[in-house]
């Protein structure tokens, strides 16, 4: 079963839904950096030091991200092999959305962004905690986060990446429900919800990045 096309499709859908859930949780914490820095510090401290989060949830998340990307590439390669001679003319735009046909492109941009995001936040956090072994300071997170958005180049990259994330979620979120077999009278409403989510959450992340860029605090 596990090697069948439907099993892989369901696995892609479930890992995608898991990442969507993570995205919502990530946004919920991040938005507090705009409205309540103290809460942001306290939640960030919790996420950075809690054993369950660090020892179990974080490895599951990393596995989910890697699985989603690796499986995405494998499926893309298989799909390209399924049509060895390309059409001279192919009007995909007349019967499907750009977002649905180019998940690999939006996915690759998001992957590149994740590399930058890990470089920006995750690696410094590992260095801070486990290599330089600084004493834990629950108030450090807010200032560190705000300073990351000082560079206009970095903010631009963030904005572009999140626009691509909108396109990826626009198709991927609702598509995941179809993949797991959910297509009924509620699907129209569900699709509307997924598309609102697909726009609202990345736009929210863009807002956070721009807000901190234009409201820098002294080092």
């Amino acid at each position: 079963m596990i090697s069948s096309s439907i099993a892989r499709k369901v696995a892609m859908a479930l890992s995608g839904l898991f990442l969507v859930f993570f995205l919502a949780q990530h946004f919920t914490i991040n938005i507090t950096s705009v409205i309540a820095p103290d809460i942001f510090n306290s939640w960030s401290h919790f996420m950075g030091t809690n054993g369950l989060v660090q020892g179990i949830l974080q490895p599951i998340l990393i596995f989910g991200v890697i699985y989603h990307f690796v499986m995405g590439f494998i499926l893309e390669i298989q799909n390209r092999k399924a049509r060895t001679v390309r059409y001279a003319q192919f009007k995909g735009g007349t019967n499907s959305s750009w977002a649905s046909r180019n998940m690999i492109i939006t996915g690759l941009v998001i992957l590149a962004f994740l590399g930058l995001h890990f470089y920006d936040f995750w690696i410094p956090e590992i260095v801070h905690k486990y290599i330089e072994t600084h004493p834990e300071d629950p108030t450090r997170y807010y200032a560190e986060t705000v300073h990351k958005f000082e560079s206009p180049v970095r903010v631009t990259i963030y904005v572009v990446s999140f626009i691509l994330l909108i396109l990826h979620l626009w198709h991927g979120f609702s598509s995941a429900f179809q993949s797991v077999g959910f297509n009924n009278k509620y699907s129209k409403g569900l699709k509307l919800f997924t598309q609102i989510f697909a726009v609202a959450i990345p736009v929210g992340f863009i807002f956070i990045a721009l807000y901190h860029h234009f409201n820098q605090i002294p080092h």
Partner: protein
Amino acid sequence: MKLTLKIWRQKDANSKGSMQTYPIDGVDGDMSFLEMLDVLNDGLINQGEDPVVFDHDCREGICGACSLMINGEPHGPDRLITTCQLHMRRFNDGDTIVIEPFRAKAFPVIKDLMVDRSSFERIQHAGGYISVNTSGNTIDANAIPIEKEDADASFNAAACIGCGACVAACKNASAMLFTSAKVSQFALLPQGKVEATRRVLNMVEQMDKEGFGNCTNTGACEVECPKGISLENIARMNREYLSASLKG
């Protein structure tokens, strides 16, 4: 009407094909697309050239034989019709029309625009049937009560003519819409329940073996299907498959 046709010509399955250009004059708007190709072939034969090979049979939209990728869309620019139902009035004088075979690794070109779609037959053979006792005590299907919604959905799935437009339209050359229609038409009926588990497992296994691509839910298949087969069938097949896999 004067047209320029760019047509894929390929001598046989092992040869390398290429696009060839043919001017054609005197095309009437009331001709079907296939009749226009008939006129082209008459001209080619009169000139001592090889006619363009293409699939056709009933020419009334029910057999699924005619195929053709016309200007980048299977069965041409109109919805819910096959190539034989496409009329030349849909085009304008002076147009260039690009005509290609349905392209997929699982649909190898036999010659020119004709492709081998026997992979669909093999998927059907793997489970697209029900076993009925025909030794004299066959139960009349009309005597079995079936919910109207299920009967309608099953009938709609059974409307699939197996033309392969879904595969041709899909950027991944996936056969999920075809296979799901064939699974659905039985999954919804009591007669199909008996073999439901092995049917979906075997048909999906055969579909994968044939080298079709994976479904990424672009929905192109549903839009281009001449019979309006719905994506709901794919969701149903996914449910059937997961349920059958858990049963073993």
